[in-house]
């Protein structure tokens, strides 16, 4: 559908200058945090933290710098579409990679071998014999 006529005929900016500057400051603060976090050893959470911050930064850029918050639902839909389809691709590809070395449960069951991914075990104690 045709959206209502937007800014074209008005002569005022949609986002005030102060908001833009504040947004840039926020982005720099987030940059500082993400670099700082890299010097802490959080185990696997390093990646989680870094990606979370990247997502926040991207959201700030999209919503404020790219002014998507002033746009119509149709535009929101297409902004989301690109990312949603990327997510589909990553998910379905990883559906293969994350289960590839696994064997069908039937196989494990019948041959009496233990299931190889036992998350309840967690990280084995260093003293334990590493391999049998």
């Amino acid at each position, binding site marked *: 559908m045709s959206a209502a006529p937007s800014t074209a005929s008005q002569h*005022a900016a949609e986002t005030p*200058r102060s908001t833009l500057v504040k947004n840039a400051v926020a982005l*720099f603060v987030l940059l500082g945090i993400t*670099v700082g976090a*890299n010097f802490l050893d959080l185990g696997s959470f390093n990646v989680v933290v870094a990606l979370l911050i990247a997502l926040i930064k*991207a959201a700030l850029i999209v919503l*404020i710098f790219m002014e998507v918050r002033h746009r119509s639902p149709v*535009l929101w839909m297409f902004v989301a579409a*690109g990312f949603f389809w990327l997510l589909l691709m990553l998910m379905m*590809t990883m559906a293969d990679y994350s289960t590839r070395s696994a064997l069908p449960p039937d196989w494990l069951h019948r041959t009496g071998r233990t299931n190889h991914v036992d998350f309840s075990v967690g990280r084995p104690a260093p003293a334990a014999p590493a391999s049998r």
Partner: protein
Amino acid sequence: MSDATAIAATDPATGNARAPGDAVARADAYPHEHQFDNLAQQTDAARLGMWLFLATEVLFFGGLFGAYTAYRYVYYHAFAEASRELSVLFGTLDTAVLLTSSLTMALAVFTAQSTADSPAARRRSGRTIALLLLATAALGAGFLVLHGFEYYEDYQEHHFPGRTFFFPGAESGQVELFFIIYFCLTGLHSLHVLIGVVLLAVMAALSWKGRYYGGYHNPIEISGLYWHFVDMVWVFLFPLLYLIAPR
């Protein structure tokens, strides 16, 4: 083809943007293209078109992100090792430069949007817009130079995949995989930055004489969308390439 289209039908039912036809279009200070009824429709179409293009860009980079994700999962340690070979300092500088350029870009759009439709105001703003765009382009060029240094360092450390590649230890192959993905991702991104720099330089030249103002600023805004998108890609590249392993 122009005048024949001027015969307009009015929409009895709704205030559809297409309804008023050229009657309103004539009232626009800036002429719109022939296929549209008015400037608002043209602006909306351009925005939607640009965002669709950006969606394709997301998936264009997405293929590489997919490869990255799969190998990152399979070769977890090799990728962490390889990531430690990259300089966080460089990466941080890269990010800072691009974030700053995004601000100058946003300010250029802001200036264009808020310029009143008078010859004096348009002339004055034109220069400001042009300078802000040039600053953005200069920062983009700075990013490219920084990356050039980085690539040179990688080359000297034998991180460039191919015959010259060397990495001690048995996981050399997987580290090389990381560096192939690294060079493809950053190379593709740098290519986008380069296109952006040229685009912004052209836009700066166009805007110098006050072509864009509150009533018509669409090209500036669309260029801005592109530039911010390039910035956003880097926002993801930085942690995924430089920060995946704690130092």
